[in-house]
C-alpha cells in the first residue's frame, strides 16, 4: 500500500511531566503524499507533529522514548545535527508568525543563515518562492516593507514561502488555516495540493471537511493514541474502528 | 574545499554561542554576587556594633559628636514616618486604584491617561519631591517636622502604591465584576466588597512595597523631616530617620558615631529584607487563591 515511506515512527512515547501525551505511536508516513493527522482538539496531534523536527525540545519537562526515522536517520538520537534536520522540514504554524523583518528578509533569512549571501541569487530565490505561493504579484513592489504589514492570509503564505526557502523535503503544517478567513484557507489548501507533487506534507487538522478535501493518507488520533491509519479513501468510506466511525460521522467535532 | 569552509562556519557559530554563554553566566553571577556583597558588607561592618543599648537608647551628647547612646530615635522615627505616610497614601491609593478599574472600566482612554500620569509621577526622583515639599514649607512658614515628612513621603509613594495595586486589580476577571453588578450591587459595593476581597493579598503586597520605599528613602525626608536626637512626641516635631541616621553619622570622624551609622544600616537592611520576603510570600499565596 505504501510505496516509499518518508518518516517511520516507531513506538514513540512522550511524557510532559507526569502526563502521558503520546502513547506508543507506531506509523509510517508516505513520501510525496499529503498525510493528515486528524482528531479532536487536545489529543496530541500537534505534539506529534512537533516531535518530528524536535521542536518539543523547547518545552520544559518533555521526555521522549522511541524512534523516528527520516531517511534512515533517527531524529530523536541525541547526537544528531539538529539544525540540519530541521532544515529538511518546513514548518507552518497555526497562525502566521512572520519574523520581525521585511518581507524580503523573511524569505532570505534561512538562506543567509546557511551561508548564501550573493545578492543576485537571493533576489532570484525570493521571486521564485513568492511565486510558488502566488504572493509575488501582490508584494513585488514592497519587498522592503515589514512583513507584519501584510494581511493575515498573505502572512501565512509568506510563512509557507519562508519554510520552502531552505529547500525541505517535508512540510509540517499545524492547523495552518485555523486563524484564516475562508478565502485564504482555500488558497492554502490549493497550494498544498499543488505542493504535494514535490514535498511530503504532514498536516494537523481537526476540521473533518478539510481533511476530506486534501488528504491522501489519514492518521486518526484520539487521547494520545493512534486509533486508525490508512489511505484517505479507506478511512473516510470504510473505517474499521468504532471511534473513527463515530468521529467521521461527526459525533466529536 | 567547499566542505571545509562549511565546517569552519559551523565551528565559528558554535564558538560564538559558547563565548556569549560564558558572558551570560558571568553577568548573572555578577548580579547575584553584587547582592551578596552588599548584604555581606553591611552585615560584617554593622553587626558588631549592634547591642541592646544601641537599639534601646537615643544618642547622648548629640548624634554627630556624642559617643554614647544608640539609634532608637531613628528606628522609632522611621517607623512613625513610614507608617504615617503609608496609611495616608493608602487612603488615596486604594480608592483610586478601585476607581480606575471598576468605575472607569469602560473608559479606556481615561484609564490609560491616568496610568500615564502615574508612571510619570513614579519616575520623578524623590529629591524633586523633597525640594518641592521644602519650598512649600518655606512658603507656608512651617518648620521641618514629622507631619511635613509624612506628607512629602506620602506624595512620593502614592504613584507607586496606585500602580502596584492597579497591576493586581487589572487581573480581576471582567465576569466577576459583571456578576457582582448583576446581583444588584452598586459600583462601590462591588469595588470594596467583592473585588477588594478577591485581591487582598496582592494589595497587601503593594502596601508593603510602598512601605519599603517610604522607610528607605532619604532624599525626600532630608529637607522635610529634619533630624533630631529625640523621639518625636507630636506631629509638629522634627524626627530622625534610619536612612539619614546612616547618612549623617557615617560622615562623622568619631568611630563610635560611625558605628551608629553601620548599626542603622543593618537595621534598615533587615527591615527591607523582611518586607521583601513577606511580600513575596503574600504574592505567592495570592497566586494560589486567585479565582481564575
Amino acid at each position, binding site marked *: 500500500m505504501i510505496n516509499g515511506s518518508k518518516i517511520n515512527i516507531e513506538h514513540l512515547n512522550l511524557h510532559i511531566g507526569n502526563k502521558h501525551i503520546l502513547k506508543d505511536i507506531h506509523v509510517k508516513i508516505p513520501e510525496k503524499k499529503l498525510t493528515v493527522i486528524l482528531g479532536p482538539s487536545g489529543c496530541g496531534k500537534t505534539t506529534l507533529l512537533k516531535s518530528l523536527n524536535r521542536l518539543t525540545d523547547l518545552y520544559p519537562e518533555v521526555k521522549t522514548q522511541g524512534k523516528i526515522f527520516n531517511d534512515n536517520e533517527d531524529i530523536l538520537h541525541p547526537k544528531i545535527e539538529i539544525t540540519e534536520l530541521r532544515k529538511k522540514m518546513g514548518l507552518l504554524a497555526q497562525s502566521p508568525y512572520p519574523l520581525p523583518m521585511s518581507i524580503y528578509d523573511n524569505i532570505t533569512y534561512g538562506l543567509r543563515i546557511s551561508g548564501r549571501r550573493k545578492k543576485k541569487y537571493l533576489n532570484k530565490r525570493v521571486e521564485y518562492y513568492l511565486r510558488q505561493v502566488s504572493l509575488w504579484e501582490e508584494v513585488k513592489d514592497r519587498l522592503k516593507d515589514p512583513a507584519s504589514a501584510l494581511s493575515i492570509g498573505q502572512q501565512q503564505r509568506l510563512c509557507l514561502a519562508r519554510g520552502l526557502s531552505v529547500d525541505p523535503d517535508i512540510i509540517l503544517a499545524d492547523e495552518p488555516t485555523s486563524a484564516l478567513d475562508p478565502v485564504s484557507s482555500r488558497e492554502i489548501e490549493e497550494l498544498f495540493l499543488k505542493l504535494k507533487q514535490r514535498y511530503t506534507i504532514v498536516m494537523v487538522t481537526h476540521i473533518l471537511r478539510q481533511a476530506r478535501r486534501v488528504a491522501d493518507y489519514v492518521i486518526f488520533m484520539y487521547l494520545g493514541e493512534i486509533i486508525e491509519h490508512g489511505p484517505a479513501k479507506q478511512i473516510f468510506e470504510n473505517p474499521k474502528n468504532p471511534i473513527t466511525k463515530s468521529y467521521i460521522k461527526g459525533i466529536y467535532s | 574545499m567547499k566542505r571545509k569552509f562549511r565546517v569552519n562556519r559551523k565551528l565559528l557559530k558554535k564558538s560564538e554561542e559558547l563565548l556569549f554563554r560564558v558572558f551570560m553566566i558571568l553577568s548573572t553571577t555578577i548580579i547575584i554576587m553584587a547582592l551578596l556583597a552588599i548584604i555581606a558588607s553591611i552585615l560584617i561592618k554593622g553587626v558588631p556594633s549592634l547591642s541592646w543599648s544601641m537599639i534601646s537608647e537615643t544618642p547622648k551628647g548629640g548624634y554627630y559628636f556624642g559617643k554614647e547612646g544608640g539609634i532608637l530615635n531613628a528606628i522609632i522615627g522611621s517607623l512613625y514616618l513610614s507608617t504615617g505616610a503609608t496609611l495616608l497614601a493608602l487612603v488615596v491609593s486604594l480608592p483610586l486604584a478601585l476607581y480606575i478599574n471598576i468605575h472607569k472600566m469602560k473608559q479606556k482612554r481615561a484609564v490609560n491617561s491616568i496610568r500615564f500620569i502615574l508612571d*510619570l509621577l513614579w519616575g520623578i526622583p524623590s529629591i524633586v519631591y523633597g525640594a518641592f515639599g521644602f519650598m512649600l514649607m518655606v512658603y507656608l512658614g512651617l518648620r521641618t517636622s514629622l507631619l511635613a515628612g509624612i506628607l512629602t513621603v506620602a506624595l512620593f509613594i502614592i504613584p507607586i502604591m496606585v500602580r502596584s495595586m492597579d497591576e493586581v486589580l487589572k487581573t480581576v476577571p471582567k465576569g466577576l465584576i459583571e456578576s457582582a453588578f448583576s446581583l444588584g450591587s452598586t459600583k462601590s459595593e462591588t469595588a470594596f466588597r467583592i473585588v477588594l476581597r478577591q485581591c487582598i493579598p496582592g494589595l497587601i503586597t503593594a502596601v508593603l512595597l510602598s512601605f519599603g520605599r517610604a522607610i528607605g528613602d532619604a532624599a525626600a525626608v532630608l529637607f522635610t523631616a529634619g533630624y533630631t536626637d529625640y523621639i518625636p512626641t507630636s506631629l509638629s516635631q522634627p524626627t530622625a530617620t534610619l536612612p539619614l541616621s546612616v547618612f549623617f553619622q557615617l560622615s562623622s570622624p568619631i568611630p563610635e558615631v560611625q558605628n551608629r551609622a553601620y548599626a542603622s544600616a543593618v537595621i534598615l537592611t533587615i527591615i527591607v529584607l523582611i*518586607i521583601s520576603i513577606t511580600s513575596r510570600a503574600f504574592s505567592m499565596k495570592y497566586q494560589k487563591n486567585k479565582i481564575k
Partner: protein
Amino acid sequence: MKAIALPNFKTRRVLRESGSEFWMKCCYILIWTMPIILLTGLIIKSATLFQEKSVLELLFSSKWKPLSGQFGFLPFILSSLWITFLSILIAAPICLLTAIYITQYTKRIVLKIMHPVIDILAGIPSVIYGVWGILIIVPFVAKMASWFNIQSSGYSILSGAIVLSVMIIPFVLNILIEIYRSIPLELSEASLSLGATKWETIKKVLTQKAFPGIISSFGLGVSRAFGETIAVLMVVGNVVQIPRGIFQAGYPLPALIANNYGEMLSIPMYDRALMLAALILFVVVTIFNLGSRYLINYYEKKI
C-alpha cells in the same frame, strides 16, 4: 417595621455610594493635578532667576559662586551626564545578557531564584548602596586608578557610576525579562525550523523583535539613574569642577540640591538656583521616561 427600615437602608446605601464615589473622584483629580502643580511650582520659583541671568549663562557657564551671585550649572550637568551614561554603559550589557540567559538558556528554577534577587536589589534603600559603595567600590576604584598611575581617592565619577549601575540593574532587568518572555514561542519555532541555531535565533529574531523594548528599558534606566541622589552623593566626591576623567570627583545635580538645602535660604537667589536644578531634573527625567514609554507603545503596534 420592615417598611420603615427599608427606605432608611436605601438612603444609607445611596449616601455611602455617593460619598465613596466623591472621595474617589477627589483622588482622581489630585493625581491629575499633581504633575501640573509640581511643574508650575518649580517654574514659578526658578523663573525669577531668568530675569537676571540668561539661560545660556546658567546652562553653559562653569562659574559656580553663589556668594557673588554666579550660577553656572555646567559642572553639575556634565557630572550628571557622565555618571548616568557610564552607569547605563555598565548596566546595559549585564542586564541584556542576563535576561537572555535566564529566559532562553536556563530552566525555570533559575528564573525563580533570580526573581527574589531582583526584588531585593530593587528594594535595598539608596543609602545602603551608598554605604556599600564607600566600603567596597571606592577603595576598589582608588586601586584601579593606581594601575593606570592616576592619583585618586576613589571618590569619583566611576564609583558613582558603578554604584548607580547596580541600582538600576533590577529595574532594567525586570523589564527585559518581561519583554523576552512575552515573545511568542512560535517565533523561535519558525526560526529554528529554518535551520537556525539557538544563538542565531536569539540574535537575529528574538532580539530584533525585542529591540524597541530593549531601547526603552535602557531609556527608563537613564531616567531612573539621572535622579538618584543619596547613594551617588556618598561616593562621588562632590567637587565643583568640570570632570575630565572617570577617576575624578564629580558633583551631579541631585547631590547639589541635597548638599545645600541648609544654606539655600541664607544666600540670595540660591534657593531659586536649587529649584532650577530640581526643575532640570524633573524635565530630563520626564523626557526620558515618557520618550521610552512612547517608543515601546509605538512599536508594539507596529511589529
